[in-house]
């Protein structure tokens, strides 16, 4: 971490800028009026499987699925 004591609160909580901006974007999406709200939220679905590798062997894949 290059930032020091003056780091913003979200970085102090261990977030990256990406997480922070995603949370902000989600807040904005929730402020939309219907029917645009459901449309915008259903567009942003997250689904993928991630597996870490150690010593040339894959560990158990971890499926991340967020259907907002």
């Amino acid at each position, binding site marked *: *971490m*290059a*930032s*020091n004591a*003056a*780091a*913003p609160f979200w970085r102090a909580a261990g977030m*990256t*800028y*990406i*997480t922070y*901006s*995603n949370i902000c*974007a989600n807040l904005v999406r929730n402020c939309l009026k219907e029917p645009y709200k459901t449309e915008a939220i259903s*567009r*942003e*679905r*997250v*689904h*993928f*499987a*991630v*597996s*870490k*590798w150690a*010593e*040339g*062997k*894959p560990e158990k*894949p971890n*499926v*991340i699925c*967020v259907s*907002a």
Partner: protein
Amino acid sequence: MAMAALRREGRRFAPLISPHPMAAVRSSIIPAEEQVPLGVRSISTQIVRNRMKSVKNIQKITKAMKMVAASKLRAIQVKAENSRGLWQPFTALLGDSPSVSVKKDVIVTISSDKGLCGGINSTSVKISKAFRKLNAGPEKETKYVILGEKAKAQLIRDSKKDIELCITELQKNPLNYTQVSVIADDILKNVEFDALRIIFNKFQSVVSFLPTVSTVLSPEIVERESEAGGKLGDLDSYEIEGGETKSEILQNLAEFQFSCVMFNAVLENACSEQGARMSAMDSSSRNAGEMLDRLTLTYNRTRQASITTELIEIISGASALSG
């Protein structure tokens, strides 16, 4: 009437009598005469007919796959072209420096989960390997982060020790920024890097894809490079608003740049995948058509030959009786 019965009989028995029934199945393109033993009068066309049927079915399937790929391509191409606006400002600001030499390189290879799309996956794997070789040296570490099933299968063979992270099943839902940014976040958190090299196929047209490397530097390296001057040296001429320091800004920028570049790369690669699948399926349905033509020719010729033989037999038998 008797001849027809005999012909049917002969057709039924030919595969049974044939000494190499398996060989007959395997190479049914070769005219069947060569495999029929002596004494069998007519030639079985059953095998060729079966083969024709299966080729016809394969052609139908590849044609359908081409249609599907074409319609998917249209949807994703618009998205990919729109997403180019995301990384261009970053390149204008920070530049793209593939030649920067750092200790910890992380190569992010982007590929597809599904096959049957020509050579795009092996292209990105090949570029990744070449890049690794190019940047190899003492005190240097190169790790792979793999997106997609196909690059994993290829890289597992010779460099599985260097694989750090593997991400698959991206395209269950239509690709969107949230998903890619969560992936980028995962990569940032789990992998130590000085520079990220994202390797993907940039979509140019339905038939041409440019293998591309985009580089995202870590904030420390950006700072080091900006002191050295060049494009990054101009960073100091920008005014920074608010109470943040330059290193904070750089870190935020680097993270956001990574997610944007990843988003574009994933979309471009998906677009290239559909384009490559379209042209692959097009050529395979054409090949199936050619094969069908050849088989039909063989089939008709054999049928004609057996009819001619039978006619000769009838006529010569009749003339022997009457003469």
